[in-house]
């Protein structure tokens, strides 16, 4: 029983971290209909940045977050403005292929720059844990989970309360109409991608703090996680990524304990497929962009 509680608790904080990985991916997919296969590579770029700041200036990863976020935002903005916008009207495969190629370029550059060793950002607190009876809740993942919650709530507020947010969702639902309203889609798309890249960078920094990362296997794993979570949670729903992350986190943690071997991974995929068949709009609510007008 205490093992189950421990697994559930760990699953929750792990799920928050997974949600953080997915939230930016889900935003870009929802608004622009782009499946960004370079999302994991962007997260790892953020992780390296935070790692460098920690290595050379002793900067705590949480203090490095704003720097990482701004740097990744600018990088993301430039990528969208200079590259992805060039094929944004093309069938979905093309943006998929473009971001796949982009991901290859980014992660191979990182590999050549920093070699393929696993890296971590060392802090005195991240691997410590809060002991509640027999259940331990790690501080690092708890903080990452809190950050995921704060970012999700903040993003939802931006999307529903601000002019920028309205521009983004309007462009996401009907680009033609948005243009008529004087919204510059190129700029709005670039900002959206920039935000997504910044969120990826934040997620990468958290992963570097609570776990470890490398340029070869981490990016693909993160992109796959983000893909699964976005679908589980429901596309374009601001809270979808968080819910999807929690579902996956708890399922893997509790399932991993109950099932022997690595059957849990097979079960996770079965759950994903069943979700798609039964509720293609995700576990919560209906997808915001289901009535999207394609132009």
């Amino acid at each position, binding site marked *: 029983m*205490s*093992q189950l509680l*421990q*697994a559930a608790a*760990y699953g929750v904080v*792990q799920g928050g971290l997974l949600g953080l990985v997915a939230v930016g991916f889900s935003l870009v997919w929802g608004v622009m209909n782009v499946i960004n296969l370079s999302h994991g590579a962007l997260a790892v770029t953020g992780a390296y940045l935070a790692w460098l700041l920690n290595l050379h200036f002793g900067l705590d990863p949480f203090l490095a977050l704003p720097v990482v976020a701004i740097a990744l935002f600018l990088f993301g903005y430039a990528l969208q403005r200079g590259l992805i916008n060039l094929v944004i009207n093309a069938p979905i495969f093309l943006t998929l292929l473009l971001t796949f190629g982009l991901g290859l370029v980014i992660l*191979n550059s990182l*590999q*050549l720059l920093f*070699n*393929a*060793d*696993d*890296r*971590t950002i*060392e802090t005195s607190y991240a*691997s*410590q*844990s809060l*002991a509640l009876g*027999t259940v*331990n809740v*790690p501080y*690092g*993942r708890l903080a990452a989970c809190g950050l995921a919650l704060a970012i999700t709530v903040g993003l939802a507020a931006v999307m529903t309360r601000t002019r920028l947010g309205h521009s983004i969702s309007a462009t996401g639902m009907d680009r033609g109409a948005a243009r008529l309203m004087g919204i510059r889609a190129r700029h709005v798309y670039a900002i959206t991608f920039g935000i997504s890249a910044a969120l990826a960078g934040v997620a990468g920094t958290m992963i570097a703090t*609570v*776990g*470890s990362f*490398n340029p*070869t*296997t*981490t990016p693909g*794993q993160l992109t796959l996680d983000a893909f699964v979570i976005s679908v589980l949670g429901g596309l374009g729903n601001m809270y979808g990524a968080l819910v999807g992350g929690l579902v996956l986190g708890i399922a*893997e*943690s509790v*399932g*991993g*304990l109950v099932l*022997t*071997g*690595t059957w*849990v*991974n097979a079960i996770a995929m079965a759950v994903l497929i069943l979700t798609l068949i039964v509720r293609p709009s995700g576990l919560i609510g209906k997808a915001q962009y289901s009535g999207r007008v394609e132009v």
Partner: protein
Amino acid sequence: MALSAAACGGGGNTNTSGSTITFAAPVSQTGAFGQAEGLYTLQGYKFCQNTLNAKGGINFGGQSHQVTLVTQDDQSVAATSAQIVDGYNDKGYKFILSPYGSAGTTAVAPVVERNGQVMLDSNGADTAIFTHGYKNTFAVLSPSSTYVTTIIDALAALNPAPKTVAVIAANDGFSQHAAEQGVKEAQAKGMTVVPSPTAYTSSTKVAANATDVSPALIAIKGLNPDVIIVSAHLNEAVAAVKQASELGIKPKLGFAATVAPPTPAFISALGKSSEGVLGSTQWVPEITASDSIFGNARAFLTNFTTTFGWSPDQYPYQAADAAAACEALALAIEKAGSTDASAVRNALVSLKADTFYGHIEFDATGMNTNKPMYVIQIQSSAFVTIYPSNLASKQATWPAVK
């Protein structure tokens, strides 16, 4: 200078220079092993080539032959390794040095067999490679079955020796075989394996390359083993140490893992948390034997680390494996006195040589018989040899956890 160990290499300095001999290797420059284990292996091969040539190459028939190393990136994909080796055969390259890792070596071995090439296996330890009766693959390194048993032996020699151990194993051939033998050894030494002796095949089995091993750790939470042994590669071992701390799981004595601790990447990935972790390794610089190419093990370490900019405290043992494989091939060619592949193969069968890597002698399956494994501990971010005791450079810090 010729190889002293060779029986027929009598010519020495007076030799005229003969044709060059090509050693060909698929290496991982990109993909999962690129800029990591693949690079270390390549550095070992290159170091061997350079040192060998500087000492006068391979001598036989009154001529000295320089060695050319030919490599191609396999992108860390086993099928590509196999394809590359087939390509080498077209060019007449019969002497193959293995790619990094069991998967690549496993794919190459049957190719080598069919082409009548000869392969020296430097970094493929899975015992499965040696169970198919291949005649042309020779491994200088110890097989997977010894990786955990040697840890158990080292633990049994420590004071206090653990009474209970937990074994977490990745779902790959190398790690499962290692765990299987390790559990048997632990039981033979009177240790209790928790939660059960077969847990490594079920509740404490983790996906290969997993970065989240928390379910396996939770399965042993509350059982308070004295030592947690991780039979896996880098990702899983790093995750195990980190997540155990997160989950408040503290083995009473310490952590041990197979291939991960003796790599610089383990220290870079864990920082201070790597302190005190035990790891089994194929080679340590305290080995006493020596040869005329690299000198003794310490000299190898000094020269290799200077050449490639490594710290002598944190060196990639994979490079030593690679250099030893390359050296064994050179010795066999010299012994055969010919570059005929089957002659060299026969020379390998009967090769007996003492090298910086220890004694090299192959059994009928192509394994380096009786080659021992060693155990290191990470102390102050340096690899310290602690087992076997006659080679130990320092006392183990034990219990490793405070």
